[in-house]
C-alpha cells in the first residue's frame, strides 16, 4: 500500500505502545490496534482488520502472528518485520528484566497485589476485543448468525475452536454470506 518511512515510524510507535500498555494476552491489544490502523490512520478497513485477525487465529503458531499480518498488509515485508519487532522487543525486555524480580518477590505482598490489580483490566480488554471484532466482522444477518454459532460451539462444547473456523469457512464457500 504505502511504503514510506513515515508509515514505518508510525508502525513502530503503534506496536511498541501496544506492546507495553496492553496487559494480558495478545487479544488485549486488538482494540488499540483497531483504533490506530482503522480509525486514526485509515490504512485498512473493518473488513480487512477482522479477516486478518481470523487468519491469524486459524494459522498455526502464536496469536502475535496477527501483528505480522497487519504490518505486512499495510507496508509489505518491511512492515511485517517492523511490526513484529516493535511488538516483541519492549515487552520481552520488560519480561526479561522483571522475571528475576518477580521470582525473588514471589511471596511479597506488593507483587501479589500488582498482579491481582491487573487481572480485571485484562478481562475488560478482552471483552473490548470481542466487541470491536464483532462490530467489524458482522455486517448482516448471515455473519451475525455465524458469530453466534461459533460462540455457542466454543462456549458450550469442548471442541477445538479451529473446528468452528473450519465450519465457517465451508459455509462461506457455499455462498451464504
Amino acid at each position, binding site marked *: 500500500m504505502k511504503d514510506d518511512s513515515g508509515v514505518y515510524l508510525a508502525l513502530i510507535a503503534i506496536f511498541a505502545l501496544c506492546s507495553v500498555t496492553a496487559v494480558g494476552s495478545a*487479544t488485549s491489544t486488538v482494540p488499540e490496534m483497531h483504533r490506530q490502523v482503522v480509525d486514526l490512520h485509515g490504512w485498512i478497513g473493518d473488513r480487512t482488520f477482522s479477516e486478518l485477525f481470523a487468519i491469524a487465529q486459524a494459522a498455526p503458531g502464536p496469536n502475535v502472528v496477527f501483528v505480522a499480518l497487519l504490518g505486512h498488509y499495510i507496508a509489505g515485508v518491511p512492515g511485517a518485520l517492523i511490526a513484529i519487532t516493535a511488538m516483541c522487543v519492549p515487552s520481552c525486555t520488560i519480561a526479561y528484566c522483571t522475571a528475576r524480580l518477580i521470582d525473588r518477590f514471589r511471596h511479597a505482598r506488593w507483587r501479589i497485589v500488582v498482579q491481582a490489580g491487573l487481572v480485571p483490566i485484562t478481562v475488560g480488554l478482552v471483552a473490548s476485543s470481542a466487541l470491536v471484532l464483532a462490530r467489524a466482522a458482522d455486517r448482516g444477518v448471515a*455473519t451475525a448468525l455465524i458469530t453466534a454459532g461459533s460462540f455457542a460451539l466454543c462456549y458450550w462444547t469442548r471442541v477445538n475452536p479451529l473446528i468452528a473456523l473450519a465450519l465457517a469457512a465451508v459455509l462461506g464457500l457455499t455462498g451464504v454470506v
Partner: protein
Amino acid sequence: MLYRRYGDLPALHGVFASLAAAAAGLVIATAIQMVAASIKRRLRPQHLVAVLTFVAVGVLRWPLLWVMVVVAPLGIAIAWWERK
C-alpha cells in the same frame, strides 16, 4: 500474502467474511469465560475496574494509554485494599 493477492476474489470473499465472523464468536466466548471465571462466587469492587476498562476502551474507544494511566493504579489500589 495470499490474502493480499486473492482476498478480493469474489469466490473467497464469503470464506474470509465468515471466518472473520467465526473468529469474533471465538473471542466473545473467551471473554465470557473470563468474566464467568472472575465473578465465580460474588461481585467484588475489582469488577468495577473490568467494567470501566470495557466501557472506556471497547465502547467509547478511548486511547489505551490514557485509560491504562487511570485503571492500572485504580486496579492495584483496589486489590491492595481488598487484601488488607
